[in-house]
């Protein structure tokens, strides 16, 4: 065992850091500091992802043959640490980190050739059509129908919680192609052109009160939408297998680097805020609470290192993946909560359009310091993390099943 990095690894870290300093530019930094949900706007996301693409770093996990950088696990974690530590936006997951893997494993050669390059270049954005209004934690109960009509499937129904559907060119989607006795058996995995006639995207307004067009999630309605059979991935009825394969990637990333950045921002706020004439960060109660979070974060960080360093390529983390998600999401909520508390009375003031000044829209003078505005919206928004990707309750159910056979 050794916690130290090798000289080559340290050189790699310097290289990544220098590149980020140059390419994560001042306008992007200012936008991210005022983001309520951790994303830039569409143009900003595309620009950032294309810069990563040009450097060859947009898809660290992809095999070399598809355009991946051929990094070791340690290099990848160094890269993510540096990106998160600088507060860079995350690459939108649905294309690069989700559907791409399914295409690599289950797609045809034509599908891979058609879809993977535009994903890598961020020319096409994707969204994920899984949850339905009646099917959340119980995903296998999904009802959206896809019936064969000639060379097409005809889709009717609706998908919900669809992250960034309003930016997406394509959706990968689970649909019901037959009613089998076992609900998992009749599900298929389809690729849907979001410009198809019959698709309506309706924004869902989350508690952070996003500006129109900047909503994080949507409900998507399908009214006799025709999808060519050639856009089926794998075989008909094999959708659940694809979905389960993908889930392993959804739960497989390190959270700690992002959490470290978020906690560091709380410290910066507490150094600027005043309590009884001294910085809030000097106050014993506050320091103690900060220290508690920092210790929990150290444990989460070290646990991620232990779990990931023990995994061979392609191996699933099992119950450890559920544990890491639980620990990290609960910690992330506590960090956003401490930030909301740290900004004090100005946490109550609502600045809905936090990007107005940066994008030259008319803006009223802001009440309070500039860092205060995103604190409450972020606290509200991050309640999502113990709900999406399997609620905390479901995670614990899965763990007791895997660990103890209960």
């Amino acid at each position, binding site marked *: 065992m050794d916690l130290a990095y090798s000289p080559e690894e340290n050189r790699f870290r310097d290289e990544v850091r220098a590149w980020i300093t140059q390419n994560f530019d001042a306008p992007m930094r200012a936008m991210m500091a005022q983001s309520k949900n951790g994303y830039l706007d569409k143009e900003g996301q595309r620009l950032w992802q294309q810069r990563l693409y040009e450097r060859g770093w947009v898809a660290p996990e992809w095999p070399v043959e598809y355009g991946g950088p051929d990094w070791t696990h340690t290099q990848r974690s160094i890269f993510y640490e540096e990106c998160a530590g600088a507060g860079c936006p995350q690459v939108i997951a649905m294309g690069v980190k989700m559907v791409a893997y399914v295409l690599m494993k289950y797609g045809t050669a034509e599908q891979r050739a058609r879809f993977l390059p535009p994903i890598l270049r961020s020319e096409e954005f994707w969204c994920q059509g899984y*949850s339905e209004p*009646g*099917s*959340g*934690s*119980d995903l296998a*109960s999904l009802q959206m129908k896809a019936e064969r009509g000639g060379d097409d499937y005809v889709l009717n129904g609706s998908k*919900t*919680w669809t992250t960034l559907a309003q930016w997406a060119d394509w959706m990968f989607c689970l649909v019901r192609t037959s009613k089998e006795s076992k609900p998992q058996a009749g599900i298929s995995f389809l690729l849907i052109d979001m410009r198809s006639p019959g698709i309506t995207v309706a924004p*869902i*307004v*989350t*508690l952070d*009160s996003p500006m129109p067009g900047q909503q994080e999630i949507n409900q998507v309605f399908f009214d006799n939408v025709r999808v060519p059979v050639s856009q089926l991935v794998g075989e008909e009825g094999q959708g659940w297998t694809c979905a389960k394969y993908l889930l392993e990637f959804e739960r497989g990333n390190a959270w700690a680097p992002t959490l470290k950045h978020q906690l560091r921002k709380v410290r910066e706020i507490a150094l600027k*805020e*005043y*309590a*009884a*004439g001294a910085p*809030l960060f000097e106050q014993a*109660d*506050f320091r103690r*609470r900060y220290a508690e979070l920092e210790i929990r974060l150290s444990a989460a960080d070290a646990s991620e290192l232990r779990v990931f360093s023990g995994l061979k390529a392609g191996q699933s983390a099992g119950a450890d993946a559920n544990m890491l998600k639980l620990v990290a999401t609960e910690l992330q*909520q506590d960090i956003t909560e401490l930030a*909301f*508390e740290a900004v*004090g*009375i*100005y*946490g*109550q*003031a*609502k*600045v*809905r359009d936090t990007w107005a000044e940066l994008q030259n829209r008319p803006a*009223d*003078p802001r*009440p*309070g310091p500039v860092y205060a505005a995103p604190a*409450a*919206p972020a*606290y*509200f*928004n991050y*309640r*999502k993390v*113990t*709900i*999406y990707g399997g*609620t*905390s*309750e479901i995670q*614990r159910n899965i763990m007791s099943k895997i660990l103890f056979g209960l």
Partner: protein
Amino acid sequence: MNLSLTEEQVLMRDTLRSFLADRYAFDTHRAILESESGWSANCWRALANELGVLGASLPETLGGSGGNAIDNLVILESMGRSLMVEPYLSTVVIGGGLLSRLGGALAEALVPKIVSGEVVIAFAWAEPQGRYELSDLRTTAVRSDGGYLLCGHKAVVVGAPWATHFVVTARTSGGERDAEGVSAFLVERDTAGTSLQSYPTVDGGRAAELRFDQVRVPAHHLLGEEGQALPMLERVMDEAIVAVCAEGLGVMRRMLDETVEYAQQRLQFGKAIASFQVLQHRMVDMHIAIEQATSLVTVATLKLDEPPRERAQAASAAKVQTGRALRLVGQSAVQIHGGMGVTEELAVGHFFKRASVIQHQFGSVDHHLRRYAERL
């Protein structure tokens, strides 16, 4: 010893609740918040004239019904259940309560107009650097021509956009955080040199940054003694704390009701999620938290006339207990609602936001733990 409401209080509570169910249902509430002014002047007038709620806790000699702090508790708990934004707390509890206790010509002129709904008051105590400390003041008032000249910046003054008058704290002598030298004034909204920067708040209300530039305040608008107002303001603050906790109780009870109902309706894995033990236990914990908070808010309300140390400890204890309950109940309500809980489509998310603000309003849990501990 008697911890029951009087018949009159029960009647008022039931009348107010049916009024709010009828005239302040969730859809109406949202329309009111999204209107230009952000509040319902109609509802305010109805509270005054149709229901007599605005005068319930104020003295009969000043046009009220001669009730007490328990009336305020009953009223605010009901308002919390409906997420009412109208400024009862700052107008009646703070403004009406303070003026009534002080008495004199100012009280005789203004309290009857509070009862009738014509005078609306906002409490301008916080400052950008002061966090939750009443005495951390940079706003100054200096004597001039038989009155005072007021200069300074008051932060996040809740309800200010609707107010006709402000209760303003300012320093007439001493250093920034000294206990001595704190004074309080009543300032009319349109006094020359007063400016408001109004904005919405994250919990659906409205607030303003208030700036005073050489604002002339007549001597008879000084509230209490010059430089000696801190003990009086500590009491006002304790009343505000208890009142906002009472509102919080209503907010929490509504969240629990919504959550139990949702859990009974929402089906996953072929059954109502209310049948899962992990959620049953969590909903029971929400109930326990609300009950424990209710007990301390009731005690603190009954101790508002005790000596300062006992009064402050009771109020801070109530705020600590309620603050923790608001966190647990709010976060659990959202979690049990799942994805729907993080949207603005259902009521529960709006109650969660109000609960989150009340947690810190007039001081966070940490602040009140310290305040309690300092008085051990």
